[in-house]
């Protein structure tokens, strides 16, 4: 098990390194310099600016400094907002994204599992159809539509929430629902399929024959055995929530990482793009690594034969 963990960890570092390198060379391969602006600057000013951002050195040297700085977790200085370090900008915005992301993950796990369990227990009855209708809708309505729709209905028409403000707890409700709707549907369907299978297993019949109470069977025997795919899905869920928040933050005007990332892409603010990309990548790759580990930890069968699960 430790061997597999080490192997996965090394892969994680390799892919991160590839992404960092690719980001660097892609950003340097773009024609035109970020120093070019509408204002005519003298040759001296241009030179000073280049020296300030370290652009006067050769590409190889720049790459080495860049790698060294990343190891020190220093992502450089933003080009659009003068004298703002990228680290500070990430630190300022990440808080909002983290809160929103955690809220969405917890919501989708709780609601998704609940719907899935209900649907499996009342298989082919009203509650099952009801839960699965919600799930189909959740899967079919992309966040691009869900977020404006929620905003329109609950904030504009019913005035229950503020349209674009993020101070109180209440302001997180709509963005969280919009972000969690897809994962809720996915988890509900995943859990339902697995639970129906497990409910027909021999050991459940055995537990019933022993006269165990229904809730003990469900919680202790059934849920534990059908949670496996949900555990694997956690890595994807986190990735989905992190990338999905880009849209949600745009619609609800939340000053989080996602809106930062997009504005940096549109502004072509290269240090900020590289900083946010690497931060995102590290986060996503780490999530995937942890979910792989969780999977190996939960399911002893994987420890020997390394199975490949594709979601």
């Amino acid at each position, binding site marked *: 098990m430790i061997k597999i963990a080490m192997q996965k960890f090394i*892969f994680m570092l390799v892919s991160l390194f590839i992404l960092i390198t690719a980001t660097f060379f892609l950003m340097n391969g773009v024609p035109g310099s970020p120093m070019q602006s509408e204002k005519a600057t003298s040759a001296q000013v241009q030179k000073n600016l280049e020296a300030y951002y370290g652009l006067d050195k050769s590409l190889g040297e720049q790459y080495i400094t860049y790698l060294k700085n990343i190891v020190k977790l220093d992502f450089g200085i933003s080009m659009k907002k003068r004298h703002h370090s990228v680290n500070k900008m990430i630190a300022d915005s990440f808080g909002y994204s983290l809160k929103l992301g955690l809220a969405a993950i917890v919501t989708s796990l709780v609601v998704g599992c609940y719907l899935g369990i209900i649907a499996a227990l009342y298989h082919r009855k009203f509650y099952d159809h009801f839960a699965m209708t919600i799930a189909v809708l959740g899967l079919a309505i992309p966040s691009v539509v869900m977020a404006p729709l929620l905003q329109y209905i609950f904030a504009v028409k019913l005035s229950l929430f503020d349209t674009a403000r993020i101070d109180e707890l209440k302001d997180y409700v709509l963005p969280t629902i919009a972000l969690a709707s897809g994962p809720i549907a996915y988890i509900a369907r995943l859990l339902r399929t697995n639970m129906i299978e497990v409910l027909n297993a021999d050991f459940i019949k055995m537990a019933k024959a022993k006269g165990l109470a229904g809730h003990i069977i469900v919680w202790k025997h059934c849920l534990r055995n059908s949670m496996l795919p949900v555990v694997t899905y956690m890595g994807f869920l986190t990735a989905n929530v992190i990338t999905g928040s880009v849209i949600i933050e745009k619609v609800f005007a939340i000053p989080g990482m996602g809106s930062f990332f997009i504005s940096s892409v549109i502004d072509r603010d290269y240090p900020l793009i590289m900083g946010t990309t690497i931060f995102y990548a590290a986060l996503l790759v780490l999530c995937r690594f942890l979910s792989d580990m969780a999977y190996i930890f939960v399911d002893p069968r994987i420890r020997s034969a390394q199975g490949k699960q594709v979601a």
Partner: protein
Amino acid sequence: MQNNSTTKIVKALDRFAPLKQNTLARDMVVRPRLTTWQEIWIRFKGNKLAMLGLFMLCALLLVSIFAPLLSPYDYFSNNLKNANQPPSSTHWFGTDDLGRDMFVRTWKGAQISLFVGFAAALIDLIIGIIYGGIMGYYGGKVDEVMNRFSEIIYAIPYLLVVILLLVVMDPSLFTIIIAMSITGWINMAWIVRGQIMQLKNQEYALASRALGAGHFRIIFKHLIPNAAGPILATIALTVPTAIFTEAFLSFLGLGVQSPVASWGTMIDDSVGAISRYPWRLAFPAFFLCLTIFAFNVFSDGVRDALDPKTSK
């Protein structure tokens, strides 16, 4: 004694009479012989929701091709006098902020979404089959090296690659498709690999080999067609994902550029005006959801039809 028993047996044998020809009909196969694909189609037809999905997809495809051709309007001409008109008999879906007909633009968006979806699926399919086929068929060291490579690519977050590429290249339909294909093929390659590994040890593959067939022939003539089921199910899921990603990128302003209309850009354009001109959001949003819904139920149906175990 022995003689006696022999006559008994002969007598007993006499009681056996040859059957008349027509009684043999009982042994005939009553059910017509069906190929695997016919059986799958019958199972698929039994699933009403999946048939609805298939029907909706066909309808969407046809309307998106013909509606822009038959309409008197086009998707790019501005007409500022007619800006922000609600739906009426002349403009069925209303007009947008530049007075462009929303009906034509919505179906133009459908063309783009469907094109992106199918193009991405096709590229994934080609690369995935070749890469996965080689991995699964040769196995051993080749498989090990190629698998490690795909695992490393897979770990790179897909959306980041897409966005990075769109920074470097000009945002266009072509760029979006290329960017999506960079990481998209891996799932397909893994599915093909798993299938090929199972199938290559089957007797018919061995027989073909014994008859002197080359590797290429065995892979493409025997193995790939038999792995078609899971491949089809994967494609049916790739298409809506690609459509979703295109809408996502266009919504962020990284997709196709004006005046070309995509559902994502139309939604992006209309979000700000949602309280006054809701129809500008409603139509593209509705059809985007409908398309993704249709693909989802269709792919569920395909999966269940291919594997009867899951439908219970």
